[in-house]
């Protein structure tokens, strides 16, 4: 089964996945209309700043077993049998934030959501774009990512690719894994800048 695979080393921090995610979870499904909606749709993927201010795309890992599901007071968090996606039933959620305590990745947010009950906040997180996938589309964050930081593929395929890259880098006659020169240059400059921004 395909799933969203995150490659943080590829994230350039443009945050386009956040816009695409919020749009995909709006009523209008169009960016320009979505920003006018009340309540405002919000991203369920969160690009934070890493130690060197590099982008870090943070989204639900759909853990198994899922600590949020075990901690949910209202029994609102469940796993979809067909896709393995950890889902939140917006009508059962009581917005108690017990899942915030449980989630070791900090990916759950609490707000009124266009797709939830009107007038009160609920817990909201990545649903693997189940509505889009049902229509034959791929998750919105993957579709918009132009840097390859988010891919939609079989986990095995992604692992195999990564294993091969590591194996190549460890064989004696191989070149080390190549990071494009411009990317490496900017990265080293940014790290240096960060050290100079205060101490």
């Amino acid at each position: 089964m395909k799933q969203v695979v995150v490659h943080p080393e590829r994230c350039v921090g443009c945050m386009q996945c956040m816009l695409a995610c919020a749009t995909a979870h709006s009523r209008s499904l169009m960016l320009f209309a979505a920003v006018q909606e009340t309540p405002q749709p919000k991203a369920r993927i969160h690009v934070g700043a890493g130690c060197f201010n590099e982008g870090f795309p943070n989204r639900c890992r759909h853990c198994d077993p899922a600590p949020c599901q075990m901690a949910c007071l209202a029994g609102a968090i469940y796993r979809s049998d067909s896709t393995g996606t950890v889902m939140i039933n917006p009508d059962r959620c009581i917005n108690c934030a017990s899942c915030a305590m449980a989630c070791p990745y900090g990916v759950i947010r609490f707000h009124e959501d266009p797709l939830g009950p009107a007038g009160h906040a609920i817990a909201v997180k990545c649903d693997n774009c189940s509505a889009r996938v049902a229509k034959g589309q791929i998750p919105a964050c993957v579709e918009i990512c132009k840097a390859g930081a988010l891919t939609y593929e079989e986990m095995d395929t992604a692992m195999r690719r990564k294993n091969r890259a590591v194996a190549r880098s460890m064989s004696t006659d191989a070149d080390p894994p190549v990071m494009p020169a411009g990317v490496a240059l900017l990265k080293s400059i940014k790290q240096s800048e960060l050290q100079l921004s205060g101490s």
Partner: protein
Amino acid sequence: MFDPGKSLSITQDGDRLIAKARQDGIETVWERHEAQQPQCGFCDMGLSCRICIMGPCRVDPFGEGPQTGVCGADADIIVARNLCRMIAAGAAAHSDHGRDLVEVLAGVADGTAVGYKIRDEAKLKRLAEEYGVATGDKNPLAISGELAQAMMEDYGMRRKAVKMVARAPKKRQEVWEKFTLTPRGIDRETSEMMHRTHMGVDNNWQSLLLQGLRNALSDGWGGSMIATEVSDILFGVPTPRPTMVNAGVLKEDQVNIVVHGHNPVVSEMVSKVCQSPDLIDLAKEKGAAGINLVGVCCTGNELLMRRGISMAGNHLMSELILSTGAVEMMIVDYQCIMPSLGKVAGSYHTRMVSTSDKAKFPHMEHHEFHPDNAEKKAVEVVRSAIENYVNRGKVFIPVAPQEAVGGFSVEAIVGALGGTPEPLIDAIKAGKIRGVVGIVGCNNPKIKHDYGHVTLTRRLIENDILVVDTGCVSVATAKAGFKVPAAADMAGPGLKEICNALGIPPVLHMGSCVDNVRILVLVAALANALGVDISDLPVAGSAPEWYSEKAVAIGTYFVASGVTTHLGPMPPITGSMNVVNLLTAGLEDVVGATFAVEPDPEKAAVFLRRHIEDKRKALGLDVRSV
């Protein structure tokens, strides 16, 4: 990653006022910078393009996603276009500032610029002669009218070259001719730059960048140079004079008025009316001991250079100065004025006044200054600043002011040398002074406030390199105490000896950021005196904390003029290693100078010292190993 425990400024007033602002719940540039993290990597690398709406487009730096925009432009073209548009914007800003001064000059001639006058007739005549305006025994007003007309033509398309290109050494002019870099008209080059970067025009990244150099030269030897020279005619050529710097220049018992921005046209008039006995009496009536006019940023530098008016701080201090609660009014014109200032002022009694028809800001009162009403307007706003004194709440002035000397125009430096550049050239030849570095540019929250400026300056003077500075740097080094004659003790033995002999500090304040052209004039004079090109001199430029498009234009005209220039922060070009390589290496074969990027000022100091020793070696002078 944000560490709230860390210090953000090397300055004591900066650190204390950051703490004060936080305590007062004021959001400053550092919080906003933090909130922007991570910043977009496509934009940071120059790989995003918003030039047309077949896009917006971005190119995947990892090579798997799209490699061209919708139009087909690849990373090289997109990066070059984006950089060139930065140069165009920077050149436009300086040159438009110059245009405003030419208009005042024309207004003085026809009597419409009430309250302005010609302060330096000798300079007026020198300029007129350069521009081919007959002087003879003509009335200065008539000369200024004709000079203004001639300068206006520099902005147009009737010339083959802007006039002051002739100030450059012959060899330099030949280089420009050879690579078609000679700027033809100030506005023309910016217009052409914008034209070329339109979709479907110039799609050769090398020729785009060469036009970028020509555009920058139209600023350096055109618009900015006009701005400086006309300012000198209207307000006087700067001469060394003592002043005070840092937030401690605000006075607890006086009406504090801060001028912020760049053009002296408004600040000079404000400074003039602040002397008015009527207004001083009014201030006393309101319980103040007087009126204390101070500067922030480059319009402050303009006043400091010519009048010795105190300087409260540079770019990153502009919000913090308000958090003292001691500012009755801040009067702004344009450039580098953070749109947040009105909101910051809202937390205190400070009134914010914008003055330019070109620059309006949220939460500011707009009092539009024009050459014909400036004097009247200045009286009005200063009066309301005085009336605001009674609304003052608790005041926090964090430090005592630091002494400094400013006002080192080229004329003043030559004057200090005894009327000729020879003593400086002799000192360089003798190796007492290894060379000269112009440290210029802004502040940027990406670098700890003033750390780059002060560290680099210290390392260079320690190693007998004379530092000249402008803009935000000049404030940083003044606050650090490098701008008093006694600072010669911090210099290496050779530089110390020369400074002591001449009674000058080892770091010379040459003015505002348009005044970077004074550095061009200085290096041109040195090159001419030695009979070499600028690129042969043991000199360099540096912008350790730059942030603005204007800084891109300045750096580019330095390099195009033959001055190798170091940049602290990385410009948005790493998306194209072709562009990176051209700017940091390839340009050597074109203009005899390159850019170098190094955020760490300690490493930058080593680079600049090596560069200077290399140039000395080529000139057959003695060489130190670095």
